[in-house]
């Protein structure tokens, strides 16, 4: 807010691939009391993919539960097996993973090209360089873990599609960002971004497939307190950059899970205008949280759609984790980046968010 407003500047740079760009002075319509809100409409892990995948996955893609099961328990070897030593043993591995040597070949994404942000300000031997070479030292080791798992690869991977679809569909995973202290959407050296969980559906156009600015979302102050985080940062030439210490993002999938992802040292880098905010969320994700969110939300059946083996991914997460060492020196978090898109929305904060009337100590007649 210390920075003088530069409302007169145009977002010329934002017009490329950024539908709905408008002259900046129209933003006054949606910036109210220095505040503008957006709602998440698209979320995908940032994976660098070549057309045939051979550059980043020269050995091909990984095997999944179905393929691994066939290797472990061949149907044609004439052996009679029990459910306990087959199916239940594999499910045990998912819910009680270990760090024993991987018995299958896990194919990590290869190469030096990747997407994301330089989180630690260093250029390390395992870091990536952006495809255009403009940014070095990119930290995105999660890409090495899931980049050659078909389920995560766009546009056909089941998780790639349905993670986003269910986020759009279910209010549980509605993510709002509210910028306050905004003098200008072009340059402002002191803004605050606060995340909330929203409680309403997304506003679509008549086709139902495109999300429109101008909707309204109620911020969830009753059940969604753990999803409220404050980021500090600035806007430079229409690019918002903000950072926080920690952020819990609500996630859900098809079958009633109400999970979250726990990000450490997260930062948003978003090109913003009065209608949209698009760019990247990056930081470190707690590896145990990442693993269990995946296992709880996506069943073995659904993981099989795209050769996604939880036990193998667990070992790779521990091998490639690159931050937040525990007392024994083992890293507990892994760098990541996600492509994100938001549209503008008006965020309502209910005057009185009624807590559940029933006190915790009431007799538990339910």
């Amino acid at each position: 807010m210390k920075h003088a407003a530069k409302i007169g500047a145009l977002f010329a740079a934002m017009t490329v691939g950024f539908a709905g760009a408008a002259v900046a002075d129209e933003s006054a319509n949606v910036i109210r009391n220095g505040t503008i809100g957006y709602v998440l409409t698209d979320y995908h892990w940032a994976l660098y993919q070549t057309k045939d995948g051979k550059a980043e996955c020269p050995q091909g893609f990984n095997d999944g539960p179905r393929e691994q099961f066939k290797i472990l328990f061949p149907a044609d070897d004439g052996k009679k097996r029990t459910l306990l030593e087959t199916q239940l043993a594999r499910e045990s591995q998912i819910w009680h993973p270990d760090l024993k040597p991987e018995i299958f070949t896990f194919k990590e994404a290869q190469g030096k090209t990747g997407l994301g942000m330089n989180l630690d300000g260093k250029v390390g031997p395992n870091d990536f360089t952006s495809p255009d070479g403009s940014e070095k030292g990119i930290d995105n080791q999660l890409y090495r873990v899931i980049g050659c798992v078909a389920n995560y690869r766009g546009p056909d991977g089941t998780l790639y599609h349905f993670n986003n679809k269910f986020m759009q569909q279910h209010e549980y995973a509605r993510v709002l960002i509210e910028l306050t202290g905004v003098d200008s959407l072009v340059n402002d050296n002191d803004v605050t971004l606060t995340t909330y969980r929203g409680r309403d559906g997304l506003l679509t156009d008549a086709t139902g497939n495109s999300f429109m600015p101008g909707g309204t979302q109620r911020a969830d102050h009753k059940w969604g307190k753990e999803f409220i985080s404050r980021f500090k940062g600035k806007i430079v030439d229409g690019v918002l950059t903000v950072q926080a210490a920690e952020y819990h993002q609500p996630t859900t999938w098809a079958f009633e899970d109400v999970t979250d992802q726990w990000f450490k040292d997260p930062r948003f880098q978003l090109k913003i205008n009065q209608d949209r905010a698009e760019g990247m969320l990056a930081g470190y994700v707690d590896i145990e949280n990442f693993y269990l969110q995946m296992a709880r939300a996506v069943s073995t059946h659904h993981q099989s759609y795209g050769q996604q083996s939880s036990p193998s991914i667990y070992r790779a997460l521990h091998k490639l984790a690159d931050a937040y060492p525990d007392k024994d020196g083992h890293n507990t978090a892994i760098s990541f980046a996600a492509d994100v898109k938001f549209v503008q929305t008006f965020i309502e904060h209910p005057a009185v968010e009624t807590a559940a009337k029933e006190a915790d100590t009431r007799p538990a007649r339910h």
Partner: protein
Amino acid sequence: MRNLGKLVGFVAGLSLAAGGAYAAEKRLMEDYVKSPMPPGFQVIVTELEGPVFADAKGKTLYKWPIKSIRNGDVGEQKNKPTCDDTVYKVNAGLMSPYPGGFTLPEVETRPSCLQVWPAVYATAEDKPVGKWTIVDRKDGKKQWAYDGFALYTSVLDEVPGDTRGGTRRKEGGDSPAYREPVSPAPAVPAQFGVYSVAKGRFLATSIGYSVYTYDKDTATKSACTGSCLNEWAPMLAAENAVALGDWAVIERSPGVKQWTYRKKPLYTRIADEKFRSYEGGDIPGWHNVFTQTEPAAPKGFTVQDTRAGQVLADKNGRTLYIYNCGDDAIDELACDNPNSPQAYRFAICGGGDPDVCNKTFPYVIAEAGAKSENRAWTPVDINPKTGKFAKPGEAGALHVWAYRGRPVYLFGNDKKPGDVSGDAWGEFNGHRNGFKAFWLRDDFRTNAG
């Protein structure tokens, strides 16, 4: 709205429970539409499921509707009972990605479907009555059916009014093809419906929107007028609607009638977007409506707020969990109770090790001498090494709380009240062989019904 039964007292016979430890609760129970039944059958208003049909001994009747699961259909079509005396030895491969043909746990003692679900046989003299019909079984016997579905009882039900064999609550995706209690229609006007949810039998509109009552109303007059009507819509009654049982009609203004239930005018909330919402009930003075509520949880249990709604918790605020399990044989027998094989649960909560299991999902210990007011909640003795019911006086047995005859659990990694980190833990998001939090309210998904 014809043939409304009067409000009935709670099921008789609870005092027959083992040890006579259970006293019948005095509370309002759901009314139902009375219709002709064949001799030997009755309706019992149960504490968990409301009115259900029962046999002459008071055993609840169940059906097994067909359900499509991942690799095929299980359950029964109308007029085609399939539950028989076959003892299945291997899994059927119904649940992707795992194939069939593997020997089932505890196969030496695995019962047949009929041993667990005794068929309700008809005699040569029996005659169909209304929806009650008689179907032919493949073994040549005759079996009673209701609305076409063959009828069974459950070996898990011990006293009249028990519904431990199954529930009418909507189960989550990829859950087994559960058996359901068979019931008469609830006695509600056509504009209304009753839904089984975690908190009881929930009164709503016929398509599922919540109905509410208002503290300032009386039995004969609505206080919701003027601006109140911007937020609340009276449940209007037809000109010829008449009072019957719990239901009555008031005239809001000349010619405009409104339904009342148990002496309270009913409304919907205009802002409600979701079916069976509790949001209106959060507004001071307004309440959701139940035809009957769930039986009380054990003394000291608490209700905790979570990231999505509310859960039942222990006295320390730690979330309770329910274990769900149906096996993968063609008859889909339950594996979620201590009488059934524990290998499924041990695999999920302990990697096969009961000791690890008891740390990951520990039992909820009941104090010595703990008693329950109802049959929904009972203290039971469990051998923690086997997961089975302990013998009387067995060394090392744990005295734990059970719901519907199945132990409830905590999750070892929940750190504080309201944590639900063990929810959806297990095969198919905890619905198939795994754990779900004891949801009472879920404002976002359908975990609470």
